[in-house]
């Protein structure tokens, strides 16, 4: 059974790698809009890393030299200077450098590098300065259902479907059947290995729901980033920032008296140092902790995507030096193993994010009901917990 499962995993991974390569290889034909040189590859990767307004699976140039795109458009919802504007992203015709202007209710919009700009009144065309910044257009608040939002919605529905079914199973029987048997140990793992040891037996139940949600949300999205659909949701700064700010809000709101005491007026240190420590602690709690949370997840996932795509791109960039077969083989082997590592990273990042969230929450709700030990001069001997707190 285990061998079967492992071979199944292996086949799935192999298929994933082959599919992703095949989809990106579609655009390697000669013609307009294709990716073959180093610069084009770089642009393509940077474009992929960003959120996109349409869900494109692949595109190719047909015999007539026409660019064909496969995928489906997504709704664009904008909050402009004159109110809400909605239209479908297909109106941009896959243009991403601001040359296609969409006109709605007297306002003109252009898409430049996956960002939608509103043209200032009177302008009919985007003009760029020498740094390639738009001169006569400004960004608008963009609540569009982008590819990332689709991913989030999909994962949310998936999680809700899986886990509410698991929850229903418990009504009739003690031990879940089917896929629930896979999910249950994961839930127990998060509860017993992440929530309970870091938050403490007394308070962990209140926060386990959040930690479980975040864990599975990040993990499934990370894994979805490895599929050929090309999601890069956890590689969006907005998404990771949102997750980090949720953690920040939770540990700030649930912090008890001791937590604020230790942050603002650290006991056991000379009075003169206390304000300095308070500044450091405040910066740590409100800036460094959430910043490290959001940047770690974002950077790991983005870096993973860039590496996998660069390795896939070897088959175009090294085509001349290694011949087509050599470049393709090298690219397949390298991207296969990196994808394997990325599967591990997908789990590890979800684990670390949840773990650190639990740790920060645990520090905020930790109770110091014990009296600190004092040595003969009356100075406090810091116990292990304080040392840990000062460290992180």
């Amino acid at each position, binding site marked *: 059974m285990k061998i079967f499962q492992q071979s199944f995993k292996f086949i799935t991974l192999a298929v994933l790698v082959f599919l992703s390569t095949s989809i990106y290889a579609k655009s390697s034909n000669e013609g307009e809009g294709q990716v073959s040189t180093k610069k084009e590859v770089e642009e393509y990767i940077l474009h992929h890393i960003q959120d996109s307004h349409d869900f494109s699976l692949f595109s190719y140039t047909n015999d007539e030299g026409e660019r064909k795109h496969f995928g489906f458009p997504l709704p664009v919802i904008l909050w402009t200077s004159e109110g809400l504007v909605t239209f479908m992203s297909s109106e941009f015709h896959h243009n991403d450098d601001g040359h296609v202007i969409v006109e709605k209710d007297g306002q003109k919009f252009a898409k430049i590098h996956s*960002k939608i700009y509103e043209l200032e009144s009177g302008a009919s065309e985007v003009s760029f300065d020498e740094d390639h910044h738009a001169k006569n257009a400004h960004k608008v608040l963009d609540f569009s259902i982008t590819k990332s939002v689709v991913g989030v919605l999909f994962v949310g529905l998936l999680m809700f479907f899986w886990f509410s079914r698991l*929850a229903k199973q418990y009504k009739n029987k003690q031990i879940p059947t089917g896929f629930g048997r896979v999910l249950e140990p994961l*839930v127990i793992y998060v509860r017993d290995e992440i929530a309970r040891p870091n938050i403490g037996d007394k308070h962990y139940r209140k926060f386990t729901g959040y930690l479980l*949600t975040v864990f599975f949300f990040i993990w499934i999205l990370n894994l979805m980033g490895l599929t050929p659909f090309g999601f890069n949701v956890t590689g969006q700064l907005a998404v990771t920032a949102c997750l980090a700010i949720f953690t920040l809000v939770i540990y700030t709101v649930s912090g008890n008296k001791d937590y604020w005491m230790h942050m603002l007026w650290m006991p056991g240190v000379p009075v003169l140092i206390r304000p300095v420590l308070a500044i450091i602690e405040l910066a740590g709690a409100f800036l460094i902790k959430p910043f490290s949370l959001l940047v770690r997840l974002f950077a790991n996932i983005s870096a993973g995507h860039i590496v996998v795509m660069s390795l896939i791109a070897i088959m175009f960039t090294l085509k001349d030096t290694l011949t087509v077969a050599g470049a393709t083989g090298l690219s397949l082997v390298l991207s296969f193993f990196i994808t394997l590592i990325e599967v591990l990273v997908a789990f590890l990042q979800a684990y670390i994010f949840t773990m650190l969230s639990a740790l920060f929450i645990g520090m905020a709700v930790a109770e110091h009901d014990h009296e600190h030990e004092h040595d003969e001069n009356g100075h406090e001997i810091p116990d292990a917990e304080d040392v840990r707190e000062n460290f992180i």
Partner: protein
Amino acid sequence: MDKLLNDFSPGLFVVQTILLLLLIFLMVKFAWKPILNSLNEREEGIQGALDAAENAKKEMENLQADNQKLLQEARLERETMLKEARELKTKMIADAEEEAQAQAGKIIAQAQEAIESEKKAAMAELKSHVAGLSLDIAEKVVRGELSNKDKQIQLVESMLGEATLN
């Protein structure tokens, strides 16, 4: 840094916040709470069953210990009973012996007493007999003396020599 800030999409941030809040709320209400509650219940059930088994085992051990104790007590009782019986037996034998001895002593004493009295009676009879005999002899002697002096003396002598004093 500038590029990163440029990539940051406030709209996506807002949408994500709303969706995540909704997701957390729904998951906690419809999934995590029932799942965690059932898991807890199940774990408590398992713990309870284990405890019950442990208790049953302890009870069993106690029962066994009780049985052992009862057995030990019964054995001890039997032993004491046997001992008592043995003691009784020896005592009875000793008593009987003693009684028999006393009885025998009594019988012997009685016998001795009887013998003594018989002996005394015999002696008295003998004495009276001897007295009669001596009177007879004396009579005869006196009669012989009266007839022949020498013969008298000879007779006395012969008589005395014949007489056996036993």
